[in-house]
């Protein structure tokens, strides 16, 4: 519980510190309780890792799965696999097809299309700081690890994304096995295995390596992090943290999400929220299959509940919300200001403002056009331009022009 308290205090500090994170402020503002918590976190190896996480010293490191600890070699193998379209039924889809680095690994369209033409019901989500989420994707409490999540796009059949199935998986892994680049990368990544590329665990290694690459996608170098905000962005930050707008209630902490887990948080209750985006039956229903947490749990009270996404790099991940149905940040803000979205026509018509499942924190607020601009300026200050162009996350095959 002390760990949780430490995070909560960090959260409460957030907004006052404005980019000057914990370590810098410890000396001047923190109580003994917080210092004790900080010490405990250090005692538990919160900063210990053989992997270069590129996370600020003030930010806790992500959790590493016991069966897949981070290494640079796995990260680099995963990077090659992430950008390799041979991992698909027809050689046309790689992870990067729907996760573009320049868009913080989202894809800029409402809903992506899989290798065989099936349209995904959900918007491609940014992969920024995936390592810090307690569950993966827009609204699935059952997806606990990145490795679990990766099984879905690669091997899932509802919808088909990469389309790897029983008729082609052996052929596809043979293509990978035949590539000299992979022979070296697999050996480096899994030195404890006799034959990580040709052996029984080849596919498992593919999953673990891609998981390592995605887990390594940390992003903490925005203008906000540097304390380099315009006057407009500073006003927007104050609005963000105001009791009037309440943005920070869900988008809290260093990753701007209440679904954040790290080495200092030993337990986190599932955090999902209905934001009044739909109400198609007057009783709060969301259009199928995108009923969010409810889709997995079947609990009627979970209708329309989705996990709070990070706001880091949010300005480059349009369109917004789980189904990409909101085009701009301004539109997102105005939906919140209204206390929900009203859809006046079409099959999804309904008044989300009066949904019985809407999170209680979402109450309407007044906001001027200038304030919307300020809030957008603040959200834009969360863009880590280095992350969007860092060669570390770029396509390693690009020099040959193959396997895009």
């Amino acid at each position, binding site marked *: 519980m002390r760990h949780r308290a430490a995070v909560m205090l960090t959260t409460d500090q957030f907004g006052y510190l404005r980019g000057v994170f914990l370590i810098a402020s410890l000396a001047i503002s923190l109580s003994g309780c917080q210092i004790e918590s900080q010490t405990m976190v250090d005692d538990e190896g919160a900063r210990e890792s053989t992997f270069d996480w590129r996370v600020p010293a003030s930010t806790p490191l992500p959790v590493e799965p016991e069966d897949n600890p981070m290494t640079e070699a796995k990260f680099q193998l995963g990077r090659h696999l992430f950008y390799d379209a041979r991992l698909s039924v027809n050689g046309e889809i790689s992870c990067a097809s729907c996760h573009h680095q320049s868009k913080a690994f989202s894809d800029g369209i409402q809903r992506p299309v899989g290798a065989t033409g099936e349209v995904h019901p959900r918007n491609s989500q940014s992969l920024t700081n995936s390592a810090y989420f307690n*569950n993966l994707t827009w609204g699935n*409490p059952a997806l606990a690890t990145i490795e*679990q999540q990766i099984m879905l796009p690669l091997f899932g059949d509802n919808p088909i994304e990469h389309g790897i199935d029983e008729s082609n998986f052996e052929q596809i892994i043979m293509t990978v096995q035949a590539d000299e680049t992979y022979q070296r990368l697999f050996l480096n990544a899994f030195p404890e295995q006799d034959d990580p590329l040709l052996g029984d665990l080849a596919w498992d290694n593919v999953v673990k390596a891609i998981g390592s690459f995605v887990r390594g996608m940390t992003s903490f170098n925005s203008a906000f992090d540097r304390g380099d905000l315009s006057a407009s962005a500073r006003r927007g930050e104050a609005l963000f943290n105001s009791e009037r707008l309440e943005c920070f209630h869900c988008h809290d902490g260093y990753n701007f999400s209440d679904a954040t887990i790290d080495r200092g948080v030993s337990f986190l209750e599932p955090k999902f929220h209905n934001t009044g985006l739909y109400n198609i039956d007057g009783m709060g229903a969301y259009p199928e299959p995108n009923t969010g947490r409810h889709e997995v749990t079947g609990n009627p009270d979970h209708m329309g509940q989705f996990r709070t996404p990070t706001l880091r790099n949010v300005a480059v991940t349009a369109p917004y919300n789980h189904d990409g149905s909101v085009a701009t940040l301004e539109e997102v803000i105005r939906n919140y200001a209204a206390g929900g979205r009203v859809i006046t026509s079409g099959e999804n018509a309904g008044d989300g403002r009066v949904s019985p499942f809407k999170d209680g924190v979402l109450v309407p607020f007044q906001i001027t056009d200038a304030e919307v601009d300020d809030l957008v300026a603040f959200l834009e200050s969360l863009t880590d331009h280095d992350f969007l162009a860092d060669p570390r996350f770029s396509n390693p095959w690009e020099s040959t022009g193959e396997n895009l």
Partner: protein
Amino acid sequence: MTRSTPHATAPFIPEASSSKPSALKPVVLSAVVASAAMLSACGGADSSTEIDGARTIALSIPFAAQVDGEAATCGTEFQSVGADASTVTFADLRLYAHDFKLVTDEGIAIDLTLDTLSGDSPAQNDRVVQLDLRDTVGCESDADANPNFNNRAQVSGAVPEGVTVSALRFTLGVPFDLNHASQSDAAEPLRNPGRASGAGWNWQNGYKFASFDVMPVGGWTDPANAGRSGSRWNVHVGSTGCPVTASELENGTEPETCTNENRPVITLALGAFELEDLESGAVHVVIDYAKLVDGASVAQDEGGAPGCMSGPTDPECEGVFANVGLSWGGNTAPTQSVFMLEAASQTMSESSPESAFAAE
């Protein structure tokens, strides 16, 4: 192409302990006279110990899919299926089963110790069996022959000699701990990709316990929504409502059980059959698709996933779940009507003439 087969169909019985003894016809194994002392010594968990030291009987029980008594082959059009008398072809015919038992005339359930199979990709391990009833990969009519299919998808194992058996019992699905473990390094038949390719139930974190998918000719439509239609009508049975958070896993905490486990226990009375019929493969377990979708319109879908994918609010699941003996929407689990024990002679002699299992 409809065949008239004189089925020796055994009626379903519920849990043996609650069934009428008169409905069960005890079968005494000829080799050894059943002894009450041995039965009690072998009861429950002790049976596996006993089995190591005692003589055992090897059983081999084939499974087969049918449509109204006709062998369910891939690429074949079956007519008059479901409440709307649709014509369908199959797209998937697979299931997992575990906890195989033989129930004695005294209602004691004796474990069937599953054989360890050789080969790179065995269809069963010591915990769970995959029954792949398709004769081509992906059940496509033009696909290569299914390497997993040998027309005798079966469970094989051993039970101690000297038992008087009245029924065969098994549980549909994958045991909880295996269902929620990593799939990419799982032991076969649970490896994905591998035998479990296409059997992943990953959005719910597990496996499809049964996948019986058809393509209705002309596709399916939604009678209430002209904009909804599709080509594939699926029956996927699996656990739902299984939230497992990363925090729980990282802590080593036992995951929550699922809201709907959806693992029906199937008990099939031997009826007129004898235990030695289970030794010889003369009896097989039949899954009849026509009975699975009895009452459902397979060219229609009124909401939720197309067909029944175990969604707790999917309207097509109410009837399908009832047929397979599962509770749905809070109702009491009815008696299943899909699984039967039948004489395997017809199927085995026709499609596998060299089979040692061909009955007289």
